[in-house]
C-alpha cells in the first residue's frame, strides 16, 4: 500500500460528489483549515460512531473556522440516507467512481477490503497537510488529534 501523505505535502486536489447533484472541490475551501476524515463505511453500528461523534464536536472544530469533510467509498444515495438518519451537519463525500481514487492519492486505501482506512488529515488554509494519522481500522480515533493539530496551526 502507498504511504499516507505526511505533513508538509500539498493536499492533492479532488472533486467529489457531496449530494446526487452537487460536487465539492477541495480548492473551494482554500482560506480555511480543512479536516478530511476518511472512514471505512457508513452505518457503523455503535452509538457515537466516528461520524456521529464528529457531528457532536462540530462546534469545537468551528472555533478554528475548520471545515470537516467525511469521505468513504459509499455512494451518494447511501451517504444521503446515512447523513439523514444520523442528523449529520457536515458533508459526506463519495469516493465512489473510480472507487477509492481520492483515498489512493492520499495513501489511505485498503485495497484488500475495498474501503478507506480510518485516516485523518488536517490541511491548513494554504492547502498544505499539517497533520495526518491512520487509526487501526477497528478503533475510532476520537478527535483529540484533530483538535491538537488545529490548535497548532499558526494563528
Amino acid at each position: 500500500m502507498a504511504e499516507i501523505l505526511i505533513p508538509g505535502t500539498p493536499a492533492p486536489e479532488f472533486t467529489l460528489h457531496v449530494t446526487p447533484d452537487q460536487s465539492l472541490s477541495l480548492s473551494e475551501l482554500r482560506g480555511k483549515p480543512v479536516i478530511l476524515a476518511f472512514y471505512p463505511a457508513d452505518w457503523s453500528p455503535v452509538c457515537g460512531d466516528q461520524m456521529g461523534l464528529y457531528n457532536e464536536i462540530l462546534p469545537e472544530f468551528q472555533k478554528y473556522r475548520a471545515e470537516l469533510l467525511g469521505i468513504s467509498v459509499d455512494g451518494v444515495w447511501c451517504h444521503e440516507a446515512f447523513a439523514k438518519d444520523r442528523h449529520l451537519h457536515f458533508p459526506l463525500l463519495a469516493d465512489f467512481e473510480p472507487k477509492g481514487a481520492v483515498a489512493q492519492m492520499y495513501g489511505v486505501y485498503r485495497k484488500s477490503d475495498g474501503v478507506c482506512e480510518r485516516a485523518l488529515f488536517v490541511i491548513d488554509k494554504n492547502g498544505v497537510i499539517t497533520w495526518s494519522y491512520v487509526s487501526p481500522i477497528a478503533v475510532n480515533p476520537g478527535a483529540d488529534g484533530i483538535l491538537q493539530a488545529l490548535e497548532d496551526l499558526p494563528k
Partner: protein
Amino acid sequence: MSTLKVAVNPADHIQGDEHAGFTLVEYGDYECPHCGHAYPIVKLIQKHFGKRLRFVFRNFPLNESHPHAESAAESAEFAGAHGKFWEMHDRLLENQDRLSDDLYLELAQELQLAPADLQRALEERKYRARVRADFTGGVRSGVNGTPTFFINGQRHDGPFEYEDLEGAIEDALV
C-alpha cells in the same frame, strides 16, 4: 494512545478512595444503551476491586442522537449539587428507557430534592456549562463514543464486558 487530559479533581463525581491504586473514569451518556449495559458491569468491577479502585463519572451526552441525554445529565448535576449525584446517576441509568422531565421530577421527589428547583434549573440551563465542560474535556482526551473508559489515564479501546474491564484494570497494575 489517547490519554485523559483533565486530571481527576475535586469537582468530579468520585466513588472510592483518592489513594486507590486504580482510577476508572467513564465518559457516559444516560440515554446510550451501551452505557446502560456497562452500568451493572461497573458496579461488579467496583465490588471486585473494592478499596483498590475509585470510579469517576463524567458527562458525554450525544445530543444529536439522544434527545434526552442532556436533560438527564443536567438533572444528575442538579442532584450532585445537593449531594445526591450517585443516587440520581444510578436511577437515571436504571430507567434509561423512560427519560423525560416527568421522570426527573419523580426521581427528585424520591431523593427528597425539591422538584420545583430541579424544574427551574432545567429551564434556566443552570448545569449546562458543567456538562459542556465535561464534554469538551472528553473530546480533548480522545473520547470516541459512549461509554469511553480511561484506566489510570489511558483510554481503554475495545470491548467493555466484565472480563475485558477486569483484565485491563489488572494489567494497569503492573
